[in-house]
């Protein structure tokens, strides 16, 4: 295949071109309540061609090999159109020219496990949730995505990387009278099938939560000091800060770009933030991004001071900074964009969870992520459940909790960072394309003055 895609590149008369061919195999097993509702094992493939011509940088995706010539002609014509109209010609930052075939170590490759066994495993976890008499339905899906990517460039890069992402995830919904409550169930990773087994304790624990959530009271809207658990701290780091670390997002936003200057004091002194796709075994792991650039650990913030950002080759050149290997595509349908790999707040070994509670005094302890979103400087995310905290003691359970804030205000309101680091097993960032391997996490953190939505 590498020979075939290099042949396509030869037909492009440009300053630079690269091509990615990818085979994406997906196995999906879905349960809806007791019923097996979906089983599908299919494979799809396609190409992404990018062309740089005199400062104009275009891309095209196509699925039929016989369309290669038309695709190359279209991409070149678009690059020429861009070159005639852009004020700032695109340059690509220097990157090592790599020739490598990488297949990460896995504890039990999912392709060696039968479909029947995957159905049985999913059925068993789904069955645990259904044991709760208050549960009226479930929607639990096993999802296995294997990407086999071939990348070649006119600079001579030839990279092949095979990645597999697994999850068993979904919702359990319980009902009591007119009230329904749902709990998320999320296990998964990118290091093989072994981590998917023997997870009964997790499913029993979250199923028990559903009963408690039916008895919980809705949170009253207002301004609170809060502790976020590791899951929510990860979502906060991703939504509130992480997206502004992506160079392509702030590149053409002059005000934000100025605020996000390297060296700016953006957060409180307790805040150290890292993005690191290179740690083996975690969900966001990869060796090479979709431009063939080796991934790097990036210290984004140290003591509240901005120290780095995430780049593609194009944005690295535009910012005059080094490449980091963070240009990633969802699959063969997309050109890559700048994405987080595995972003987290570094733990403070000196601060226990009890100390954070004591420092909080009165407020809320919020747990479990149900997703979030960012727009401009504002972010929002949803806590799956929470608790009142009075005099440092965790009290009654609360539900229906949504949080909103301004990035720059909230970063300065982070008053404490715990010592109990944990990374997520399940990703799902939707910045234009879905990134299932978007990993985040951190320790418990204490934030002052957070806006919580809810009834008065």
């Amino acid at each position, binding site marked *: 295949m590498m020979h075939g895609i290099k042949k396509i590149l030869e037909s492009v008369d440009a300053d630079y071109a690269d091509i990615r061919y990818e085979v994406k195999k997906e196995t999906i097993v879905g349960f809806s309540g007791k019923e097996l*509702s979906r*089983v599908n094992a*299919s494979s*799809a493939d396609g190409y992404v061609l990018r062309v740089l011509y005199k400062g104009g940088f275009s891309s095209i995706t196509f699925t039929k090999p016989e369309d290669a010539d038309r695709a190359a002609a279209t991409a070149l014509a678009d690059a020429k159109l861009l070159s005639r109209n852009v004020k700032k010609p695109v340059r690509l930052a220097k990157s090592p020219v790599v020739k490598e075939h990488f297949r990460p170590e896995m504890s039990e490759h999912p392709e060696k496990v039968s479909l029947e066994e995957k159905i049985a495993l999913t059925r068993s976890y789904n069955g645990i949730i259904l044991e709760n008499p208050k549960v009226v339905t479930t929607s639990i899906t096993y999802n296995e995505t294997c990407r086999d990517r071939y990348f070649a460039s006119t600079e001579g890069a030839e990279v092949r990387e095979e990645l597999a992402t697994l999850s068993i995830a979904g919702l359990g919904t319980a009902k009591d009278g007119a009230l*329904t409550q749902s709990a998320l169930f999320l296990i998964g990773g990118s290091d093989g099938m072994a981590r998917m087994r023997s997870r009964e304790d997790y499913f029993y624990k979250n199923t028990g939560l559903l009963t408690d959530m039916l008895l919980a009271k809705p949170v009253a809207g207002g301004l609170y000091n809060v502790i976020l658990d590791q899951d929510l701290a990860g979502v906060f780091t991703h939504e509130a800060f992480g997206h502004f670390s992506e160079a392509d997002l702030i590149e053409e936003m002059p005000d934000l770009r100025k605020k996000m200057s390297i060296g700016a004091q953006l957060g409180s002194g307790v805040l150290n933030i890292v993005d690191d796709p290179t740690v083996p075994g975690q969900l966001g792991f990869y060796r090479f991004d979709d431009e063939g650039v080796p991934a790097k650990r990036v210290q984004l913030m140290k003591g509240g001071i901005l120290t780095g950002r995430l780049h593609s080759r194009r944005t690295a050149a535009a910012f005059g900074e080094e490449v980091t290997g963070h240009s990633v595509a969802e699959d063969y349908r997309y050109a890559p964009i700048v994405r987080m790999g595995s972003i987290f707040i570094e733990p403070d070994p000196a601060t226990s969870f009890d100390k954070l509670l004591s420092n909080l005094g009165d407020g809320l302890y919020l747990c479990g992520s149900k*997703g979030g979103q960012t727009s*401009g400087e504002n*972010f929002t995310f*949803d806590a799956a459940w929470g608790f009142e905290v009075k005099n440092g003691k965790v009290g009654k359970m609360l539900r229906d909790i949504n949080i909103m804030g301004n990035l720059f205000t909230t970063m300065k309101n982070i008053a404490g960072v715990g010592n109990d680091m944990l990374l997520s097993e399940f990703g799902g960032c939707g910045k234009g394309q879905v990134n299932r391997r978007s990993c985040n996490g951190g320790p418990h953190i204490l934030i002052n003055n957070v806006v919580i939505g809810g009834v*008065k």
Partner: protein
Amino acid sequence: MKTLMDCAARTGAEFEIYFRSSFSRSVIIENSELKGVESSMSSGVSLRLVKGGMSGVSFTKNLTDSVGLVENAMASLRAGVEAKFSFPCFKQHAELKTYSEKAGKTSSEDLLAESFRMRDLLSRMEGMQINSGAQLFISQCRLINSAGADFAWEESSVEKYGSIISPGGSTYSAADRGFELLPMPEAALDKVATLFDAEKAEVRPATGKRKILFMPSAMETLLWRVRSGASGQSLHQSISPLAGKIGEKVFSENLTLRNNPLDDSIPGARYVDDEGVLCSDFALMEMGVFRGFYYDLNYAAKIGVPPTGHGFRRSMWGGDPIVLRPQPYLSHLCFDKGEKTFDALLREMGSGIVVFGTLGDHTGNIPNGDFSVGLSLGICVENGRVVGKAKDTMVSGNIYDILKRVVAVGCEREPAYGNNPPILVDGVDVSN
């Protein structure tokens, strides 16, 4: 296609073949400068089999191995996914406008010229970030099944937008959608600039229960929860708050809500769904009264009712129609328009918040109808006049509660947001 049909027929199963080929082209301008020109050519085939009360699915992007595609679907079928339905054979259907020949001739240069024009019209906002862009979509679809159905349709659309981005990152946008590339009306862009001018001050609105005007660009906050509640899937799963309420008044009598794929005034009209069931002008709520659930083939058969023509290869998160299987979906959901202009709605509101954009529509207890969303763009109104942009504000409620208190419905529908009008609601919780 003939080879695939023959292979599928040899299994003795009922079969359905969905073919789709598409082309898209987009131009992106950020901060007044040309940022990108991107194109995509994609095709694929999706196969469904039904045999012995079970169904199986498979898909491919390149139909080079019909036997392999059928074997994959048979392997899926043997896994035991129940199917109580048969593929239908409808023949008669409405003639709809879904495609413009002019769209097929739209070049990157054409999209670029319009994007530059929109940028230039907005550039009177000196010192502000101006974004604009245009995107062309063209697709051809064919749906064949073993019952004899054979439908083919072409679609074209051109979407375009012009936006002013505030220093804090709030987006003030005009968006438009048509079958072919037509210039964005200058008045729409002027309106954006005027709105931006009026909102330079940031204010913290009073909290508690307030009047909220949901603009078409923020309607998804409400519609997402309606889609969940009125779905035959939710009914089957016993999580719909609308169960047992057909014929009951659940919303204000000011609200009529329908899904009409036959409306070809905007792109995307359909005479059949993605399973070959005829579409109709389907009223979910008439003057606040719930009229019925919507179904695909699968959930209609499970409940024991006729399908309603709402089996689409769509999800709330978009996705590739070739990869997705049909499921109940409301593709053209919109409220009937009322009589009030935007200015009249502001006067009617007196004091409250106009919501143009929200954050977190996808979060919260959606099956229950609950929402609690941050405002990415909301403007505060006092005595019928705009006083500034709402700062760090959230609005919360439950649609089955707040939509009983609809004060008025606007008369200005927006094609870019499914032809929805603005809706003024009383008693929505505001926090900050």
